[in-house]
């Protein structure tokens, strides 16, 4: 929408759009390894149900998804596939890196075939640490992402301006923009 682009939208409308976007995320689950099971428990099990947050884990393809959760070890052989599928997602898109393997290589930090962190390939918005993180930790990561989206400046994003890290204090995010880090 051209109005958003040029920053002419009034603030109530922007926050309404942001609210709508943050509570209607479609998650493309990229389940690679053990974290995929915890992600499956978070998304599919009746106990840690993620749909109550407004996040729906059922897109049929990456082209219909807003959010991708990379859970599990990223190997060098798999990396081009991740890049290609990330590029297929339409803007605005967000990435949650789940688990220590996706954050930084994890227990396989010294392996010859593991990519040391998925942020070497694609930009990441939220890092959820753990091996594997509990489903509640993943849900907290999603909640933080939603707070970030609510405070986002869409005009700045579409103009391609950079983002600042977000300070997270006691689970409450304060300012706009940025790359939040989940502090467990």
């Amino acid at each position: 929408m051209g109005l958003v682009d040029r920053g002419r939208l009034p603030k109530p409308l922007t926050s309404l759009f942001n609210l709508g976007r943050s509570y209607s995320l479609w998650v493309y689950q990229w389940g690679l390894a053990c974290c995929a099971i915890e992600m499956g428990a978070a998304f599919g099990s009746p106990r840690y149900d993620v749909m109550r947050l407004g996040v729906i884990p059922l897109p049929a393809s990456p082209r219909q998804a807003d959010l991708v959760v990379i859970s599990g070890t990223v190997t060098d052989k798999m990396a081009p596939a991740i890049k290609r599928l990330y590029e297929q997602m339409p803007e605005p898109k967000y990435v949650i890196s789940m688990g220590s393997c996706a954050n930084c290589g994890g227990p396989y930090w010294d392996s010859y075939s593991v990519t040391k962190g998925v942020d070497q390939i694609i930009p990441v918005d939220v890092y959820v640490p753990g091996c594997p993180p509990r489903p509640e930790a993943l849900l907290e990561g999603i909640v933080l992402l939603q707070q970030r989206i609510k405070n986002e400046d869409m005009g700045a994003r579409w103009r391609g301006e950079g983002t600042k890290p977000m300070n997270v204090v006691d689970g409450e995010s304060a300012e706009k923009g940025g790359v939040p880090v989940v502090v467990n």
Partner: protein
Amino acid sequence: MTMLGDRQQLAYIAAQAADARVNVELETEGMTLNIGPQHPATHGTLRIIARLDGEQVVWAEPSAGYMHRGYEKLTEVRTYPQVTALVNRIDWLGSFANEVPFILAAEKLMGVEAPARAQHIRTILFELSRIANVSLFLGDLGVQLGAVTPVFFAFRDREYVLNLIEAATGGRFHPNFDRIGGLKDDLPAGFIDETRNVMKKLRTFCDQIEDLLFGNEIFQSRTRGIGVIPKDVALQYGLSGANLRASGVDWDLRRDQDLPMAWNKADWKVWTHPDGDSFARCWVRLQEVRESTKIVDQLLDTIPAGPVMAKVPKIIKVPEGEAWVSTENPLGEMGYYVVSQGDQGPFRVKIRSASFNNISIVPWVLKGVYVPDIITILASLYFILGDIDR
């Protein structure tokens, strides 16, 4: 229970022959279908390249390696406790079961044996991880065939088992609880009663899955007669676990091997099925979960008192030697060949994982099969990518 009716077999063959005629007329040869590596129906990042002739597979090849993390190289630069922590993540659904053969091999080299209480508790946790693993298989089986409901049952009932494992070891998966010489800690208070309750719930779950899934006419027609693997082929490829028992081989490493674990303290049965098709494999696994709940119930009654850890030095150096231990893991036979040269860490560890052999039969079994049956056969063979790729 063997119902591989001739009529059904003949109908299948006739359908294939009819297709072959159509394929020749329409010149449908030569399409290459790429399944994966990211696909909701494969248990992880497995890529199958299938060359099709119409709807039939002419040639299929799994392309593994998308989860290859280099375990065998990493074990050479880690100490034994570090390797234990790492090795949990091979079969990531039934994690405790991965530690056990490695620890048993190290104990064999050191000449220590864990105290009876530790062996008993190890067996209980081993069977709990088998239940956790296979109950997810039962749920996923439905999803891969198109029935979405069983997976919610599976995740819900699996949570109970994971809570038990977490109460005892501190981790839902990846417990990292085994130590050379015993276990890290003793069982918490209230564990035994809670486990009994959970076993009752799991038996209900098995009954529900049997009603929902196995009795369903669509499930039966999609799995009976599909992907038949004869006994001798299965042995040649090194198929193990429920896959082998579904082809009629009455062999279970828990019963037929003498390991310092407590399986021979309980009265249980080994399930086999003569057919060797996909239905047989799924059915055998269902019965094995039920049998595991019975084993756990019996073992809970008879846990011996005593220490959970033998006397081992603080810094463990395993003497020189080589040892092989394999156990009947949820996925099949998992074994470790540990070569030690007297250091704090192993010199070489060869990890023999069950799914590697189970999937090596895929090129053989997928010839001439229809495309939807590819998923059925893969679902019934049941692999975990960490186990294939290590």
